[in-house]
């Protein structure tokens, strides 16, 4: 098991057939981004059809997990029992995809977090078959 930053009481992800490949890759500590087979554009979160060209066929491509912080907030209220306070919720621009990932900056003083800072994904194992990407400042 990985390092743990958030409690077991966190909401668990709900999965549909269209998003299952993303969560399966996550369980293997692989960050993937859905790519439309027809027009080549990336999209996230995963969805049934491409909103640009309406192609129904797609692939999940591996991504190195690097990006920059688009926006964030430092949260001072525990909305879930046991969640560490303060903690950081961040939105990351994933390099080269034009997509954004909601995640948490971990292992950093919240005062160090800034829009534009580079980050890389690290994995937190929440359960035997459930892992989620967090982010560390680079």
């Amino acid at each position, binding site marked *: 098991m990985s390092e743990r930053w958030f409690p077991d009481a*966190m*909401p668990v992800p*709900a*999965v549909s057939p269209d*998003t299952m490949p993303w969560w399966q890759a996550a369980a293997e500590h692989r960050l993937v981004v859905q790519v439309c087979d027809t027009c080549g554009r990336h999209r*996230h979160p995963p969805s049934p059809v491409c909103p640009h060209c309406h192609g129904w066929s797609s692939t999940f491509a591996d991504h190195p997990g690097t990006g920059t912080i688009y*926006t964030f907030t430092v949260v001072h209220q525990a909305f879930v029992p046991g969640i560490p306070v303060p903690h950081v919720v961040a939105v990351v621009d994933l390099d080269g995809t034009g997509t954004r990932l909601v995640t948490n900056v971990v292992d950093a003083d919240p005062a160090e977090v800034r*829009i534009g800072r580079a980050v890389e994904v690290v994995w937190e194992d929440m359960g035997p078959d459930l892992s*989620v990407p967090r982010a560390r400042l680079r």
Partner: protein
Amino acid sequence: MTGACIVGVGETAYAKRGGLDTSEYHLALEAICAAVADAGMSLEEIDGLASFADDRNLPVFVAADLGLRELRHASMSWLPGGGGGCAAVGNAALAVEAGHAHAVVVYRSLCQGQFVRFGQGPGARRAPADRAPALRRSKGPLDTAAAFTMPFAMLSPPITYAMVMQRHMHRFGTTPEHLGNVAVRFRDHATRNPRAVLRTPMTLDDYFASRLVAEPFHLFDCCMENDGACAVVVTGAARAADGAKPAVEIAATAQGAPGAYGHGQYVNVYVDDELYTSGGGRPVARDLWARAGIGPDEVDVAMLYDHFSGMVLLQLEDYGFCGPGEGGPCFAETTLPINTHGGSLSEAYIHGLNHVVEGVRQLRGESTAPVPGAQTCLVTSAAGVPGSGMVLRVAR
């Protein structure tokens, strides 16, 4: 006048979440009856019901329990969260103007103490305590989308909109004082309003002393959670002319959003920077001004959806009172009276339907913070979600 009018408004007492003993449904009926009485009408004339925000107080029960003779219109605005308030009034106006109904009551009753807190849908479902966290099957697209936010602690609207404001501050130099100004001004209006839940005078120092929730939001940047209900009665121009009080015309309504806006439980992080740092209201404002035949300069008083202080600034931008990014200075300098009841921040959070009520009261001269001679009122329903807007006008 030719369009539908609001001829009656009513509300229950407003209290903090969990502060009222009666059921949410009981409050809905009370508010509807109060609005109909205010209109000088009888329940026999009501043949339509409209609401928004997945209101739990279903019209078939309301119709049965109020002894309505027939129900000829029942509509629910499908915009998320509080976005559908003005749209629900618009649905009622369309029904009346088409001759499908004689009088429609638009209502909203909310007792968050009796149910799951708003904004905490199935996506917030926690891991059962007796087993290890694991994936679960989705209950629909909202649940599927929430999988990419809730496990990452994007758990509640203050977090969602704090991130919007952080980006707005980064792009445009909006300051914490700009946010505080909104909280302080609306609280000042509330001090004159006996219905308001929060009436203690507040200075900017008091505002900054309140605890941080999600930066840059302090407690007083966030709307309350309340128990209460309110309602308005919509009917045609001819019936309105015979009403008990001066009729207020629904000059125009508009609803919607740019495409891809409003993804997830109020998430919006997947849209481009220009759209993300707005309130998403520009298409609604475009349609509203065109239909009303006016612009922001003709507005005498405005009721803007204040779930969060900063989102009020974005609505000033979206509706053209100032340019993109200028909402902070615009609010600080404007003489336009805004949220004269105290808003969701200080009167009560009934998902903005109480803003419609205050708009009507202003145009009748009944507000507790009156704007003398006000003829035209803008009301907005939500920023940060696909929403709606309305222009009210003194009926001539």
